[in-house]
């Protein structure tokens, strides 16, 4: 018994000693925790770009900044973090997240002055506007275009049929192995399929009078969409579209000269230049006698988190700092995507002819719908595309996808 009492005493003494050290640690941690600073979340690709500007931000804003990279599922993690107590202050992401982020109360509107608004590419501004409010500061606009190897195909094709004919000739002559590199993959890719679908008359959502997308008017499953997929099915049968070409190999097929035509965006240009391929960028051709093959416009934006601990600094950063020309140009230099800020775009246009070409390819392109209902489309639409490219019956597949999407939207 006595041993036990002694034990307790010793234990208590030890406890005091250790907790003494512990409380010292605590003080340090506390100081670190309450340190004023802005926390920015980005994906692995953009985080290093921002990190390189960190010290500049810090000296100009007068606060410390932490740039953190979320390697996977940034949007989902941001929403969860907003629900917990650990939300970042600023998030960088695609504008089509806005609908979901707003319904989860994760982001706040950004108040821009009229002068600031006028400085942006109008399409970019439209893309980040949701329910009449601007929800993000756009910094880059990107869309798909047709990139062709000018050594193999000197002339830009006037239509898909034209392109396929040239490509078949190249393949027959043994100069290439594939007709076209447009990523499909085993589970489809709605974003890359959309220009073809649009050219053949299909649409995803109708638009309301004010230009907003109308979830009540679903275009998938309408007769136009079935016709459009018939055209896609033909391309699949000819081997122009292949499920074996996906995100992992579409760009390399082009850089290695295995195909003369690639449908991709500004992110592909770096690899192509590195490979030393001579290329030109033109709008994606439409089907003969049918509509333009308009791609979707994607806008990379800075968002102000609702639940951040330093919201005013975040607003200052997003509304008054990111919107300036110097930063936009600097971001372009670090990661060459067409700037959303007109002044910056004009400045770099002279040195980078690709920008204007991408902009031309994206002329009249609708922004990716930001409404939450959009998320119901991606998966079934992509799978329908993949199945049809693989030779499945068009009507049955499209109607099946339409039912799935319709059910998901109704919920």
């Amino acid at each position, binding site marked *: 018994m006595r041993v036990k009492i002694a034990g307790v005493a010793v234990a208590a003494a030890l406890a005091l000693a250790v907790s003494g050290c512990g409380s010292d640690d605590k003080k340090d941690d506390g100081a670190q925790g309450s340190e004023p600073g802005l926390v920015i979340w980005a994906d692995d690709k953009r985080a290093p770009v921002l990190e390189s500007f960190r010290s500049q931000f810090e000296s100009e804003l007068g606060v410390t900044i932490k740039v953190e990279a979320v390697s996977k599922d940034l949007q989902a993690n941001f929403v969860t973090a907003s629900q917990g107590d650990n939300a970042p202050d600023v998030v960088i992401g695609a504008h089509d997240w806005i609908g979901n982020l707003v319904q989860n*109360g994760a982001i706040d509107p950004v108040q821009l002055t009229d002068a600031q608004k006028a400085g942006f590419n109008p399409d970019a501004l439209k893309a980040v506007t949701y329910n009449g409010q601007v929800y993000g500061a756009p910094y880059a606009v990107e869309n798909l275009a047709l990139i062709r190897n000018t050594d193999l195909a000197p002339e830009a094709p006037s239509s898909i049929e034209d392109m396929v004919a040239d490509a078949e000739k190249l393949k027959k002559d043994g100069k290439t192995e594939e007709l076209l590199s447009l990523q499909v993959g085993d589970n489809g890719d709605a974003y890359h399929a959309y220009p073809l679908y649009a050219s053949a008359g299909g649409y995803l959502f109708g638009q309301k009078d004010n230009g907003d997308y109308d979830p009540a008017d679903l275009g998938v499953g309408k007769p136009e969409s079935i016709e459009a997929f018939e055209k896609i099915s033909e391309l699949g049968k000819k081997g122009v579209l292949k499920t074996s070409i996906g995100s992992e190999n579409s760009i390399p097929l082009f850089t290695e000269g295995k195909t003369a035509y690639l449908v991709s965006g500004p992110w592909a240009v770096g690899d192509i230049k590195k490979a030393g391929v001579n290329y030109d960028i033109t709008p994606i051709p439409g089907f003969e006698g049918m509509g333009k093959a308009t791609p979707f416009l994607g806008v990379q934006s800075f968002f102000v988190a609702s639940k951040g601990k330093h919201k005013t600094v975040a607003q200052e950063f997003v509304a008054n700092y990111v919107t300036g020309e110097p930063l936009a140009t600097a971001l372009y230099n670090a990661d060459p995507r067409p700037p959303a800020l007109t002044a910056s775009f004009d400045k770099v246009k002279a040195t980078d002819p690709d920008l204007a070409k991408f902009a031309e390819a994206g002329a009249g392109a609708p922004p990716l719908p930001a409404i939450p209902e959009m998320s119901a489309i991606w998966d079934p639409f992509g799978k329908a595309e993949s199945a049809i490219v693989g030779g499945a019956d068009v009507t049955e597949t499209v109607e099946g996808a339409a039912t799935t999407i319709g059910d998901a939207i109704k919920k």
Partner: protein
Amino acid sequence: MDAVQTASRQRSKQGYAGSGLTGLVVRITLLGVVAALAVWAVLPLIGARSWIGVGVVAAATALLFWIYLSPNRRLPLKYLIPGTLLLIAFQIVPVLYTLSTSVTNFGDGHRGDKDEAIVSIETASITQVPGSPEYDLAIAADGEDALVFILSDPASGKYWAGNAEGLRDLAPTDVQKGLSGKITEAEGYTILTAAEAAERSQEITDLAVPVDGGGIRANGLSRAFQGTSARAYDEGCDCVRDAVTGQVWTADPGHGYFTDAAGESLPQGWQVSVGADNFTRVITDDKVRGPFLSVLWWNFAFAIISVLVTFVLGLLCAIALHKERLRFKALYRTLMVLPYAMPAFAMLLIWRDMFNQDFGLINTMFGLDVGWFSNPWTARFAVILVQLWLGFPYMFLVSTGALQSIPTETLEAAKIDGATGFQAFRRVTLPLLLVSLTPLLIMSFAFNFNNFNAIQLTTGGGPFEAGNSTVGGTDLLITYTYRLAFGGQGAEYGFAASVSVFIFLIVATVSAIGFRVTRNQEEVYR
């Protein structure tokens, strides 16, 4: 002889007794550390007045002391408690939380509570009053350290100081501007630095200087604007009213939305309880129930076949290697463990690329043109093959471990009794192996039953039949649930939780049956 034995026993007794003191010291030290950790953990909780937290820490500490200071009656607990505490904290509590969400509509649009939704709706409706000036802003504090906005209108050259009471004119002479045009000093106020202002972020956000037709709010640290919130919550009618259009959205407590007369909802909703709705949906909704059963059989087949093939190959390798003085023994062993050493997710992605129809290694190597992932059967074969590759080294390792534990004498004895190598294996080795390995095979079955990565990172559940984009040929219940919950229509977390309860019940039942079988064996061996 007896004397020697007694002597040795006495010696060893002394040995044990001597180390009894060490045991005591160790025990006291450990309890001391526990107490220290408890104090360390409790201080911030006290600081935050989180008495529940304090209670939990105190209870856990008391429990530990009680267990380790009490006599041997609670002996098993002494051995079980460290793992159990970790298990409770980091597995059981999260699972219980997940279960608790299965009776709610928790998901995208329904994450927070109603108040958060209201704040979000009101904030989202703040717009700049048309024609109002854009102010330059400096954030300052007055003599009592209360927050003040120092405002200037560059167009008119006027200056104001604003707080919660309203605006007060400032004489231009009272204000100093820096080179960049920023207000650096204002008579009677202290201008805050960015870092100081950052710390009072919440206060700044909350301050709206009242003026006619709205409030002047900070927009960041250097600008301010006059804004009004068009939508406001009215407690009287439990509704949100838009002051500009006059539209009214009434709260719908059953669904956690504000809905207008036409049935249109505001996007920001809140989390409400939906009772057993999620569960009945699993059972009654054809879109869920139909696939559920059709996926189930493949799910079982996948888990059982995965375990069987990996076990057979693993065991075969272990037996082949279970011999003293086999040439290249160490080399074989090292090479065979390699698949297990490679990061599984990376290898799953690489396998996926290897199965590509036109560019994949497998088709090019064997000169095939098989669309591995476009036919359900080849896709199933492919994922099983990948499982075999990933899993057999594990089975090899555990079989080796188990083989080592079988006393060689037992086998030698069987051989002396005239058994051939194979007979000895079947009658002696295998049953003994199964005693220690059956629970493990069941664990492995359970793991594979829910092996999300194996499917998601390779086929993604595909191939999908024409017209059916919800269920693919290789979908497991868990990948199917994942898409149901997070893929298609946005996150429906509560619903996913209720589906996972069904999955859990199925796996648990099957495993429990398997366990009963083991139990008999175990008891026999004892």
